[in-house]
């Protein structure tokens, strides 16, 4: 690449703006041979919960037009195994890539407990809080859909750790900008936008939903306009608030141009999710395409492009 693609964000230095999204890159080990994440801006791990989770009954995934639905059910190895086995491996192989651990809980206390345990580990560069998780004690409403839950989770974790805390917001709310504001007020150092959208596919021949759980989360190119709009909206809202919290753009990024849409809408970094399933080297290719774009357009650093779409 030869170009300086470094992005400074949350007090960290990312060697390029492309990260891999939670749940679409496992714990980094399954794909290291073919897509070493050490060449990327960072790795966001699969969501970790306090206990190991078996996950939802199959079928868990199905293709849709320009995307896919998943209902994995936060299957993960659990906090203890993650800290003992997965994290050391990730740290050993990360090189210059930042290690961001995505966490969730089914209660505010669980978020805080997992956040504190992960956040005390020196191998971790930042925490990403998955607010798209149902709150078991509040009638299974997603944490991210309720301002009070967002505030309690983010401030609870914030108080326990010295690392940057990223709030990953769900787009399934009436006004994402107001929830972003709550997260920022509660101490979030950055916002990740967006998680999947709820969806369903029905097998007409069988006359029933395809997925084992019925509903799933929609991801892939189909959701990119939604993600870009969320980033734009939140960025606009922050400009009005005079807040300076970086945004990480996620949703349907498959090539450099897709990533540029997010950056121009106001994202400092981007995450690549489902595209890794389509082509295992997609994240690396996207980082390269961004560097090539900057070179051809004579742009010194990709950060110079952040939010430029707002000037029109």
């Amino acid at each position, binding site marked *: 690449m030869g170009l300086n693609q470094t992005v400074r964000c949350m007090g960290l230095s990312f060697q390029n703006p492309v990260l891999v999204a939670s749940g*679409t890159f496992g714990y980094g080990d*399954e794909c290291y041979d*073919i897509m070493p994440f050490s060449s990327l801006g960072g790795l966001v791990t699969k969501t970790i919960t306090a206990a190991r989770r078996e996950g939802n009954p*199959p*079928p*868990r*995934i*199905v293709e849709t037009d320009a995307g896919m639905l998943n209902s*994995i059910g936060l299957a993960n190895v659990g906090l203890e195994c993650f800290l003992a086995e997965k994290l050391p491996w990730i740290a050993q192989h990360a090189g210059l890539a930042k290690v961001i651990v995505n966490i969730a809980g089914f209660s505010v206390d669980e978020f805080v407990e997992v956040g504190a345990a992960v956040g005390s580990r020196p191998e971790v560069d930042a925490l990403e809080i998955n607010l798209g998780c149902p709150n078991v004690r509040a009638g299974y409403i997603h944490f991210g859909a309720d301002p009070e839950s967002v505030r309690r989770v983010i401030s609870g974790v914030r108080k326990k750790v010295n690392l940057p805390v990223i709030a990953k917001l769900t787009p399934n709310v009436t006004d994402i900008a107001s929830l972003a504001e709550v997260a920022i007020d509660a101490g979030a150092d950055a916002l990740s936008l967006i998680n999947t959208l709820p969806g369903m596919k029905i097998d007409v021949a069988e006359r029933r939903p395809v997925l084992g759980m019925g509903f799933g989360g929609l991801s892939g190119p189909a959701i990119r306009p939604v993600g870009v709009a969320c980033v734009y909206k939140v960025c606009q809202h922050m400009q009005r608030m005079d807040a300076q919290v970086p945004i990480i753009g996620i949703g349907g990024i498959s090539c450099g141009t897709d990533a540029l849409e997010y950056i121009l809408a106001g994202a400092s970094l981007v995450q690549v999710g489902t595209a890794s399933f389509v082509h295992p080297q997609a994240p690396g290719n996207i980082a390269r395409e961004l560097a090539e774009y900057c070179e051809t357009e004579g742009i010194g650093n990709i950060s110079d492009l952040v939010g430029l779409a707002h000037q029109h």
Partner: protein
Amino acid sequence: MKPVFEWVRVTQISSVAERTFVIAFKEPKSAAALEPGQFCMISPYPGSSNVYLPRPFSYFRVSANDTIEILFRTFGRATRWMASLTPGDRIGVFGPLGNAFNQHPGAERVILAGGGIGIPPIILLAESLSRLANPPRIDLIYGEASGSRVVDLAKVVPPRVCCQITTEDGKIGVKGLVTEELSRILDTCKTPPAVYTCGPRAMMAAVAGMLTPGKVALFETACEENMACGRGICQGCVIPVKGEEDATRYVCCCTEGPVFNGFEVKWD
């Protein structure tokens, strides 16, 4: 070997039975390393189709000149797109993926049972077993719902394999189900045979119901589930297996399978 992603060109595609095709391409790296039971993910060249996710297909045959053949049947968007390909078209191939059948059955007799489009990995296995230094006696049962779907396997099944076709409409081979033929062959086994199967879930469940651990030397099933990544990342392709105290455990079909000990899968 580590899986590789390659853009390859289709060298040949032909219709071999109702809704059933063989597609061929050259991919020397996998061709040299792949084993029976393993699979590859096939995807369209960007912009050439509205198929979004890659789809898993078992290896069917490998020829001396590094040509890999896939046998497939059309069901939906992806397989219909594949059927529309012509020689020279580019496709993405990611493999070899998954585990393989145990090629040392440790039995005097081997029974291979393939149902419908579950037949491809069974054929590759038949070939590999018949090349063993001390090959077992191999019976192969190939079942289809109707005669019009039966693929002519005469040229691909090794001569020493004893092949029996069953169709539900009785148009080709014996009228009936794979399991009926299997039961007949099992009755002739004097020592515990090794049984391998791949086919519709209901068929594999029925086969599992007929066998008892201890009375067979080995029982392996190649399973199917929807896949996205093909290498253990998305956790999307899980198969229910028996855990401790009969609890259900979900394991990835793409990494811990597609070949499973048929006694460990929870078929109900």
